[in-house]
């Protein structure tokens, strides 16, 4: 530990500011509040602040950030990070340092976010121990009021001087280069710092009535507790303030911003929040978390349960920003969890702290937000709404997808949307997308013609396990557009027919003119190694239909299969899964023999943006293909 006088510390900050190669930010007053901002004068620094309006995460994960630029003639380009100056952030409280450590884990899991880490790695964190605590702060209870790592330098106010803990070589080097008259701390100073830290731990006015280790399990017990979430969220304005000010919230939206030439533009990432009404709404209008209580509940579950299960920490550092920013005063986690504890006591169930989950985080390279340029080589209209696009990647590479995976398709200026691949990887050189015209991107895609350029990212997600299914009997059940992803597996199986057992295909749509891949279905019907049955919900008078009339489930009793050796592969709109699964179970198909593919809103495709999350699962990363046995207990799934 070192010591520097306040006068010399001021000079140290001034010399940082004077160095043009650095970007120096710190806590300043803003009205009667505080905020991190550009430091132009060392005397603006307010290290006695209680809490800042926004946490310092804004320097690594800004409110608005360009991910990709594009021009129609040349394609998509990753934003150039070269001109980044190192940012020195002065005055970070320990709880915000813990929050950054959480964000580091989240942004590096599976795939690492290059935009976050380019800024994180070039930053220097100068922390400060809390001198004044906001009345909403409960960082001590979360174990986040003091910290021994995660900073480059850590200051403790000792009256006329600061004690300085050096946390890294970067911190040491900064001190060596810019600070004068830094001395070794005396035993008295070291003792004083310890004393101050002890005082900080006792500063909070907020109190939990129970051991916080119980939080994940308490949540578990109250997920479906009748009335609990409704009562607490009744006054929710769905304004998103609680999540937008949170130092560990990381959900984001991605949108395109074209310039007025309409030929060039940027793809922007902005903060989003799971409390906002349209957060989980997809282009067809379906909203997977439409009510305030379900969104309010999701926030607490994400912090207290889902991230705990994935990373081993409750992702709340006790800063109290959500509490202080909630106008109807319903966002205070301390109040909510105290009420929840009472609720659990009233239920009369005994709960224990959950075991620390086994966390085995891996990072497999960086996220690539930049689409590859691709060309539409064939465009085949199929129905009024659906068209089959055949796509070739311009760099000559092959997509190399697993059946059931999806790609993110970009239309210049319009945006990006997830679309499942309809063709089997056995089709070489090109791949196919069967696209319904429903949102902006798919409408934009329909307006394009052969030879036109689009962007492709991916393939993403977890597809069908073609190896595992070898030798098994397969029952394909497709409803409506569900045939699009399902066809990728079906064609794979047909191209490797000898590897698989009995194949039954059940396909239903609303009316005859909505039937997709009509020629292929006729061909299927003629094969003697495939049993094919189709149905329509109804047949209008002016259309012709010789087959079954009724919903998709009416076909299930019409076919014979051995449930022990049969795997049912079901894809359709969200509404059909419950009914199909229930009818399959009536035929004794075991849960783990049912395979589904789910649809959700997706922005990143790599488990970061939060939109596709169903409880603890990310559809984009853990799915879209799921074994029913794995998701039947996931309440938001079906």
């Amino acid at each position, binding site marked *: 530990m070192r010591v520097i006088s306040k006068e010399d510390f001021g000079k140290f900050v001034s010399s940082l500011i004077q160095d043009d190669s650095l970007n120096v930010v710190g806590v300043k007053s803003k009205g009667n509040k505080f905020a991190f901002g550009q430091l132009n004068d060392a005397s603006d620094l307010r290290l006695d602040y209680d809490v800042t309006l926004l946490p310092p995460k804004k320097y690594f994960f800004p409110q608005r950030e360009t991910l990709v630029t594009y021009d129609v003639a040349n394609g998509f380009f990753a934003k150039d990070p070269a001109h980044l100056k190192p940012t020195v952030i002065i005055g970070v409280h320990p709880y915000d340092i813990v929050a950054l450590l959480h964000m580091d884990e989240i942004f590096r899991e599976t795939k690492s976010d290059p935009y976050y880490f380019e800024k994180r790695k070039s930053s220097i964190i100068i922390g400060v121990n809390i001198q004044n605590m906001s009345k909403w702060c409960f960082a001590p209870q979360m174990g986040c009021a003091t910290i021994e790592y995660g900073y480059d330098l850590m200051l403790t106010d000792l009256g006329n001087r600061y004690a300085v803990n050096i946390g890294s070589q970067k911190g040491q080097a900064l001190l060596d280069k810019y600070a004068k008259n830094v001395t070794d701390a005396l035993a008295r100073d070291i003792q004083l710092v310890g004393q101050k830290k002890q005082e900080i731990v006792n500063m909070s006015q907020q109190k939990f009535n129970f051991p916080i280790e119980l939080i994940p399990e308490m949540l578990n017990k109250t997920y479906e507790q009748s009335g609990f979430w409704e009562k607490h969220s009744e006054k929710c*304005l769905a304004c998103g303030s609680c999540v*937008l000010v949170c130092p560990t919230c990381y959900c984001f939206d991605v949108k395109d911003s*074209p310039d*007025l030439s309409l030929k060039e533009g940027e793809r922007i990432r902005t903060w989003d929040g799971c409390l906002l009404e349209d957060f989980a709404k997809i282009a067809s209008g379906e909203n997977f978390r439409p009510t305030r209580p379900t969104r309010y509940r999701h926030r607490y579950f994400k912090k207290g349960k889902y991230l705990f299960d994935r990373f081993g920490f409750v992702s709340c550092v006790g800063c109290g920003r959500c509490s202080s920013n909630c106008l109807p005063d319903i966002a205070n986690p301390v109040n909510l969890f105290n009420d929840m504890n009472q609720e659990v006591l009233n239920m009369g169930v005994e709960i224990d702290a959950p075991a620390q989950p086994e966390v085995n985080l891996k990072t497999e390279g960086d996220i690539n937000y930049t689409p590859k340029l691709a060309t539409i080589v064939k465009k085949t209209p199929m129905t009024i709404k659906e068209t089959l696009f055949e796509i070739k990647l311009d760099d000559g590479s092959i997509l190399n997808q697993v059946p059931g995976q999806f790609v993110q398709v970009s239309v210049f200026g319009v945006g990006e949307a997830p679309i499942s691949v309809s063709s089997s990887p056995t089709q070489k050189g090109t791949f196919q997308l069967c696209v319904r015209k429903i949102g902006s991107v798919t409408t934009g895609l329909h307006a394009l013609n052969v030879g036109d350029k689009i962007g492709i990212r991916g393939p993403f997600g977890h597809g069908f396990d073609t190896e595992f299914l070898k030798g098994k009997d397969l029952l394909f059940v497709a409803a409506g557009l569900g045939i699009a992803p399902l066809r990728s597996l079906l064609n794979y199986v047909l191209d490797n027919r000898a590897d698989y057992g009995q194949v039954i295909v059940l396909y239903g749509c609303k009316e005859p003119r909505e039937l997709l891949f009509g020629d292929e279905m006729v061909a299927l019907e003629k094969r003697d190694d495939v049993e094919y049955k189709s149905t329509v919900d109804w047949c209008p008078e002016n259309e012709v239909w010789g087959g079954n009339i009724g919903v998709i489930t009416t076909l299930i009793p019409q076919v014979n299969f051995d449930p022990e050796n049969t795997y049912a592969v079901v894809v359709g709109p969200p509404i059909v899964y419950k009914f199909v699964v229930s009818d399959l179970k009536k035929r004794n198909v075991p849960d783990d023999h049912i395979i589904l593919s789910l649809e959700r809103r997706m922005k990143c495709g790599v488990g970061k943006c939060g939109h596709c999350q169903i409880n603890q699962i990310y559809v984009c990363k853990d799915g879209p293909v799921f074994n029913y046995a794995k998701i039947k207990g996931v309440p938001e799934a079906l």
Partner: protein
Amino acid sequence: MKPKVAFFDFAGCEGDELQIANLEEELLDLLGQVDVVNFREVMKERSDNYDIAFVEGSCTRLHDEERLKEIRKNAKYVVAIGSCAAIGGINSLKNYQDLDDVRRTVYGDKAKLFDTYAARPIDAVIPVDAYVYGCPMTREEFLQVVKSLLLGKKPDIPNYPVCVECKKNENVCAFERGQFCVGPVTRAGCNSCCVNEGTICWGCRGMVDNPNENSEKEVLIKYGLTVDDAINKFKLYFGWQERKR
């Protein structure tokens, strides 16, 4: 061929059309993308041959409906610009008063000559394809909507409250400054411009699709407004929307 666009005004201050006239350098870029065939505020020529109609102002008289329907018939896209056209705007304040009194106040003894009815947004009369909210609308959002229409994409108009933008802009909450704000129920998209300048949100963009009005009124009262004042806060811009709900 460039799409032909036309501008029309009904009951309003023409402040939104003025925003377009004030686009400065961007106006030229815009004119590279569209042909303006009708714009009373800036040009003399007139044409009924147009693809996109931008309509400012609310509908306050029965016989305005005919003109609106004519515009609808001629245009492929109708865009409501500004609060009056998009949500009824402050014209709807008169809906809380006796309409005969209103006429007498404005026209005195000539009141009988001037027909009126409850002020309403244009989508109360004709289908509308897109909205540019705001009083006045911002140039940025107008351009964003125009670009979206030209690209065939749904304009990106938020369905979340102004609080989202206030938080991102790191504003001190108006309530924390002792003021009273309807940002928590008002549709964002303005980049919280009024609060950024140290004042409040008056609600000029109208309410989000599903506002929690009761909670907002409770908040206003909790922070010190009288019940009547809280109700008045909702009348300024939300009159037509409240009536519809």
